[in-house]
């Protein structure tokens, strides 16, 4: 992944974007834009964990001097949780895992890759799947390990793979 500047959408420079709107229809649209922005930002930065207490540029636009307050951030992330695009890790620290692809979608992507590259019935380590040269073009390349684990666990419940622990590191066998 190349570290290029994230291209913020127009809303980011529109002051009312940082105030939760009172009109229901407007608020719905506003939340939708926020969700899109957060997912796109997380994907661009390949950043699976977001802490809403951080003074990240995501929630704070220096240029127009507007900040989305903590309460509003929580509201929007709850919305993301509802659409399976995020999960709360720790309520006290305000950290969330962000899924720009849902766990379901991730598991499909990974399983399809495994099938297509003929890796079924052999044991692969998490490390080579995530960081190996073979998966360089894949979406899940260098994905957060916890998110990756959740996707594989999801596959395991479907009986499509088996996760095993070898000397403190994880491996997986696809069926």
């Amino acid at each position: 992944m190349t570290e290029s500047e994230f291209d913020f959408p127009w809303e980011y420079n529109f002051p009312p974007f940082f105030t939760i709107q009172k009109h229901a229809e407007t608020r719905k649209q506003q939340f939708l834009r926020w969700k899109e922005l957060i997912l796109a930002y997380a994907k661009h930065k390949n950043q699976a964990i977001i802490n809403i207490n951080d003074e990240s540029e995501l929630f704070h636009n220096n240029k127009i001097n507007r900040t989305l307050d903590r309460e509003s951030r929580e509201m929007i992330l709850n919305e993301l949780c509802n659409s399976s695009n995020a999960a709360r890790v720790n309520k006290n620290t305000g950290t969330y895992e962000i899924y720009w692809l849902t766990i379901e979608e991730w598991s499909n992507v990974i399983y399809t890759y495994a099938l297509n590259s003929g890796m079924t019935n052999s044991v692969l380590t998490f490390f080579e799947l995530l960081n190996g040269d073979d998966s360089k073009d894949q979406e899940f390349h260098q994905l957060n390990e916890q998110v990756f684990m959740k996707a594989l666990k999801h596959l395991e419940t479907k009986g499509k793979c088996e996760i095993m622990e070898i000397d403190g590191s994880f491996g997986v066998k696809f069926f």
Partner: protein
Amino acid sequence: MNRFESVSAALIEGETIVTKHDGVKIYNGHEKTIFEDGELTLTTHRLVWAKEGEFSRGSNVIQLRLKLIKSLDEEIGSSMFFGKKKRLIIRLNDITGIEKLPGPMDYTNYTFIKLSAPHGITANFIQALNETLMARVFDIDSSNPNSPKVHKIKQRTGILGIEKSIQEKQKQTDENISVAFQDLNKLIVMAKDMVNVSKAISQKIRDRQSDATEDETQKFKSLLMSLGIDDPVTKENFTNNTEYLRSLGNEICQSLLDQMTEQGGMMTITEVYCRINRARGLELVSPEDVLNACKLLNGPMKLRQYPSGAMILQLENHNDDQVAEEIEKLVIESESMSIEECARLKNISVLLAHERFLISENAGKICRDESVEGLRFYPNKFLA
């Protein structure tokens, strides 16, 4: 009673008789005296009591100098034969240090006398006495350089002197205040007359319109208008409260219609209250009456309560969609706008401007931006 002096009845220079009262009995404080059934004559300087006809004959009489009178009071006494009657209580000033001729009584504990008559002291007499006291003709005389200045001779020093001067100042203030309020009472009486006069004139104008030229009539009418509502609706004219409120409502509609249209079709209830009372002038109405009258309104205006709790009187043909679009246009023109800016631009109150923004916001036309810089509104680009 010790303030009375025995003198001859002759008038002094500059003194004139104001009025008379028959059958007057004098009380020393609460006690009866021998001075019964006499004729009391009020002059510009004195109150003179005499047996009937003796004053005009120039005999010896007793007098009370008006400048010794401190204040007047009334007392309603009941009599066995005549029902209720009015007694006049005259409170008197301290006479220590004032030169005085000998009178019928030298010493008494009472600082007031009472006057009574078989049918009570008439209101006319009391009013005349009041006005005479107010006019203070007797003072003019004492400031006359020819007559001896009684109170100036008595210059006092020491603490007693200081106390005396403080007392005099207080007395002066008291008098000033009562004079001032007297004026106010007169103003109210006069104002009622003024309203009557203006009513009569406008009636005359209506009766013979042809006599005056168009211009004159117009000008006169506008002058009358500036006096306010010429015939205000008052509670006394109605026995039924609802009927009263309905009429008051009509009055509100009639007098505020033009102003409301000018302001864009709406007005806060507080403003309605202020304006209607300004127009009425003296016959003020309570906020409650105004509110209830507005609630009953069914005519060209109606009362509306906004979600914020603000109560607003607005024209019935007033349209929220129109307001929403108008505000949207305004906001788009200036890119973003605060409530205060809008109030200034449209020449309406901040409260009204706020309500209009909320209407527009609820219609999804504009959206808000709350920050440390305050509340501003932007065109709603989310729904664009």
